[in-house]
């Protein structure tokens, strides 16, 4: 029985050997880059030394996690990561649905095209360039904002020394960077709505606001829900690129802007604090996994078409 199974397996491999060989490059890539590091999570339960490496270092149980918890970082970065992600998700959904609905109703073809091209610009540039833009505007000594404030005889503001300001600026930058992209997603969903429903509603005397409220938005709802769920499943994963470029290692801002990803990076690369970095990293990976699987389970129960897997 067992050998029959094995020979069926070998037969399949032999029969399609060329195809399996064709899969090999990508298969090997993920084996090395994704699967090989996975056992390395044991490092979170060890006291890392360079000589010992991942597998030779001494076990120390939950010490790293206790340290992560007792430093107060665990609660702080979890809160920041989750809250920022919720705000990002809500604002960018609202802004892009708003923009998509307006773009769909606009009559001027060229204006529409040019506006959309403009809105796509931030999507194509790197966060490094965004950091340069932020520096140009908010830099205390020479920034445009303070130049204007000084001209108006107002007191210059120190944005890079004020953590509260970034609670508003980070969501703004996030929406700004992605609005062209997400608007296209919703716009193409609107374009897919059957035209006849609009026409018959118009004949029945519905004005354009009623048509948007009663037809466009309800028809967009499934798309909104799918994109929200996709976003929700990534709620423990922070936008490292944005936070690291805009905030960097500015200690004044960390309390309100440190997320799990920046904490892991800083602990690992700058402070060589392997205990903190690996404990926070494993905490994030495990929690993320649980969240994705549960979100998917919930979606599947309601409507299996929308499930992620």
């Amino acid at each position, binding site marked *: 029985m067992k050998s029959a199974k094995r020979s069926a397996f070998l037969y*399949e491999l032999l029969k*399609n050997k*060329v*195809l399996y060989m*064709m*899969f090999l*490059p*990508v*298969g090997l*890539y*993920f084996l090395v*880059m*994704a699967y090989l*590091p*996975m*056992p*390395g*999570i044991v490092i979170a339960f060890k006291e890392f030394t360079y000589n010992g*490496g991942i597998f030779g270092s001494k076990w120390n149980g939950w010490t790293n996690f206790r340290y992560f918890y007792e430093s107060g970082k665990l609660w702080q970065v979890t809160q920041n990561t989750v809250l920022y992600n919720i705000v990002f998700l809500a604002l960018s959904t609202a802004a892009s649905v708003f923009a998509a609905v*307006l*773009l769909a*109703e*606009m009559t001027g073809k060229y*204006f*529409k095209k040019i*506006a959309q091209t*403009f809105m*796509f*610009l931030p999507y*194509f*540039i*790197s966060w*490094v*360039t965004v950091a340069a833009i932020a*520096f*140009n505007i908010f*830099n205390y*000594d*020479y920034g*445009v904002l*303070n130049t*204007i404030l*000084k001209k108006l005889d107002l007191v210059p503001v120190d944005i890079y020394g004020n953590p509260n300001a970034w609670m508003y600026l980070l969501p703004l930058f996030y929406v*700004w960077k992605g*609005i*062209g992209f997400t608007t*296209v997603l919703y716009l*193409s969903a609107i374009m897919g709505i059957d035209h006849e429903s609009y026409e018959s509603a118009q004949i029945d005397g519905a*004005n354009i606001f009623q048509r948007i409220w009663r037809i466009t938005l309800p028809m967009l709802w499934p798309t909104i829900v799918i994109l929200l769920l996709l976003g929700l499943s990534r709620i423990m994963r922070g936008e*490292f*690129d944005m936070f690291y470029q805009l905030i960097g290692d500015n200690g004044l801002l960390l309390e309100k802007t440190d997320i799990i*990803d920046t904490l*892991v990076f800083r602990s*690992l*690369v700058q402070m060589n604090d392997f205990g903190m*970095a*690996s404990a926070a990293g494993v905490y*994030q*990976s495990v929690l993320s996994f649980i969240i994705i*699987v549960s979100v998917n389970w919930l979606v599947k129960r309601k409507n299996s078409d929308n499930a992620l897997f």
Partner: protein
Amino acid sequence: MSRGRDEIILNVFAYIMIGVIAAGCVIPFLMVLMGSLQSEDSVLRNGFSLIPEQLDFTAYRYVFDSPAAILRAYGVSIFITGAGTLISLYFSSMAAYVLARKDVKYRNALAFYLFFTTLFNGGLVPYYLMIKNYLKIDNSFTILLLSGMFNVIYILIIRTYIAGSVPDSISESAKIDGANDFKIFMSIVLPLLKPVLAAIGLFIALGYWNDWYTSLLFVTNDKIIPLQYLLYKILTFARFSQQILSQNAAVAVIDLPGETLKLALTIVATGPIIFLYPFVQKHFVAGLTIGAVKG
């Protein structure tokens, strides 16, 4: 059909709102451009302003006087983007073809093998140690190319595209004629994938072009850093721009216009993308629509 009052009101509102949003997306760039054209003196005296009193090209003159470091970084970025995108597309579509072939018995297992990596990963620490201490491929083009080379979602999108637009009968009849699977893929399937590869290729290329994270983690050798990381170092480390420009012995470090130079370098590094993206934007949109088709 004549337009009603309600539609006119909405259109006026839409023009204003979309106009404001679109302007808000572009104006920050113009501000950087304007700042880079200000004289260092006026910046130190009054700060950056929206419109410079008079145009001053000093910062750009310094950049173009000793362009070696910037040209090198451009070269690195172009090489990595070009080579990385081609390699990625070639092997991604090959794997996607295997996953789309219904006669491959374990194709669902293989798809899950790929997909699982998006659900769970070992985190940064083991990955970092593996690259640096075990594989020892930091500070090399290898890591710049490998990091982020394949994206599972892109492979699954290509698979869906193949399943929807390349009929099984093509592969079957070619097989009866004696062609092997690799040949079928190369001569029949690959040419049919042009639309999806163009769209996915742009996403991959943009990822490579804008990548600075890999260098931040693994590259300390300034000779192989890509453009975006060079720009990051210029913006972050006050002396770095002076270092790379003062290779020209005629320029005394102290004379360099620090603040305007940062912005000028930002413009030089970002300019080409700004000119290119309007032409590729429609392929991006096409890519999104292809990706939206669930399989």
